[in-house]
């Protein structure tokens, strides 16, 4: 294709984005749009898959059956979300094997939040309330993203996630209505999860070099800082309501801005975890690899079954 032809295709593409039309897998798209989407969607998928690990840690130790059905359903949802997202990424020409390979070798990133440990039962509450709260903020904005398969996956994911945050808040609230020990446990969980949750929205806008292009392509609909602010504004009153103290001495309502002001984020910690040196990076990757290796016989069995069924079907047709 000549440069002129590409230019005109790119113009048509940009006009479609401007009109809020969805871009579908078979449509022409700039190579960078494709690559950026493969990276973002596969990272999102990996985050769902690795996200099962910290919570899975508590399934066998839930305090009640009610908590157990909810946590099981939630972890099951994360697995399903990972699969929808892998499918969406596959439409852009990357294979699932490649994506798994990138995850298992550590080449691909996933949300750093899952590199923190779940030490107590209150952490399960904090994850639902804060981590899922932050994730939903991001994902609701992504419903309007320009790439069709990603946008549609987001609709279903958001619908399914609508109970995740509430079950988390209910856990924390129940603890806050309990003994002093339970209250301390809830406060301790908030202390440990608050800042990593704010980091989930990614670097500050001025330090996020890809943000501008992503906004232009409508891959991102809101900036990192906008989403982070919305999360703080939503979550602080929820903490105060049940008697929790947000671990930030700079936090205060700013009447003029109509938002909460909050203290500086420790970006050194953020980059340290992103670059593989968080508390649980190695453990998470090891657990994923172990699950993958130990699940090999199931994949083989499923493939054997599928090819037998296909052979039978073939026989029936020719008979």
């Amino acid at each position, binding site marked *: 294709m000549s440069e002129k032809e590409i230019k005109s295709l790119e113009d048509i593409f940009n006009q479609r984005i401007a009109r809020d039309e969805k871009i579908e897998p078979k449509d022409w798209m700039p190579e960078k749009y494709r690559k950026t989407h493969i990276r973002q969607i596969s990272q999102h998928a990996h985050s769902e898959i690795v996200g099962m690990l910290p919570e899975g840690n508590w399934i066998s130790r839930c305090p009640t059956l009610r908590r157990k059905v909810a946590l099981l359903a939630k972890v099951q949802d994360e697995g399903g979300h990972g699969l929808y997202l892998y499918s969406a990424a596959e439409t852009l020409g990357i294979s699932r094997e490649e994506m798994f390979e990138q995850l298992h070798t550590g080449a691909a990133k996933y949300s750093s939040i899952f590199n923190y440990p779940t030490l107590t039962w209150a952490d399960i509450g904090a994850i639902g309330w804060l981590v899922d709260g932050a994730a939903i903020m991001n994902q*609701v*904005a992504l419903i309007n993203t320009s790439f069709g398969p990603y946008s549609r996956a987001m609709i279903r994911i*958001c*619908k399914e996630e609508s109970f995740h*945050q509430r079950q988390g808040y209910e856990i924390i609230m129940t603890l806050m209505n309990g003994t002093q020990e339970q209250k301390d446990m809830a406060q301790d969980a908030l202390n440990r999860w608050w800042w990593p949750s704010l980091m989930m929205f990614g670097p500050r806008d001025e330090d996020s070099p890809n943000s501008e292009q992503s906004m232009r392509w409508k891959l991102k609909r809101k900036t990192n800082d906008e989403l982070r602010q919305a999360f703080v504004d939503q979550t602080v*009153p929820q903490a105060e309501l049940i008697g929790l103290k947000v671990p930030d001495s700079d936090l205060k309502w700013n009447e003029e801005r109509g938002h909460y002001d909050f203290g500086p984020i420790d970006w050194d910690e953020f980059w340290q975890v992103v670059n593989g040196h968080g508390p649980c990076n190695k453990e998470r990757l090891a657990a994923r690899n172990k699950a993958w290796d130990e699940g090999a016989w199931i994949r083989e069995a499923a493939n054997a079954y599928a090819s037998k069924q296909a052979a039978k079907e073939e026989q029936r047709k020719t008979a």
Partner: protein
Amino acid sequence: MGSVRSKNDLNTDTVEALHASDAKMALKMQEMYTHVAMKALAFGQVSAQITASNPDENGEMFEPAADVYRHPTFYVLPDEPKTHVIEVGFTAESTRFNCP
């Protein structure tokens, strides 16, 4: 069953579905249709060989499983502070999240 594609349309959307008793008749109908409606392309397919999703089930594709504990209201939360509703440009009720 047959389909025709609009002229100059890069997408192969089915713009019209025609039904006929056999392939020969279907092609005749398509010829007429493409001539009259200035469509660019026609193709035919025996309907028995078509596997397709049921459009009536489109809603369910987006709906979560029906278990009570997968529903937000299963979790009992206070009304205050004021219910936060995250609004997005998408029209459906589905994107309104009542956060505690």
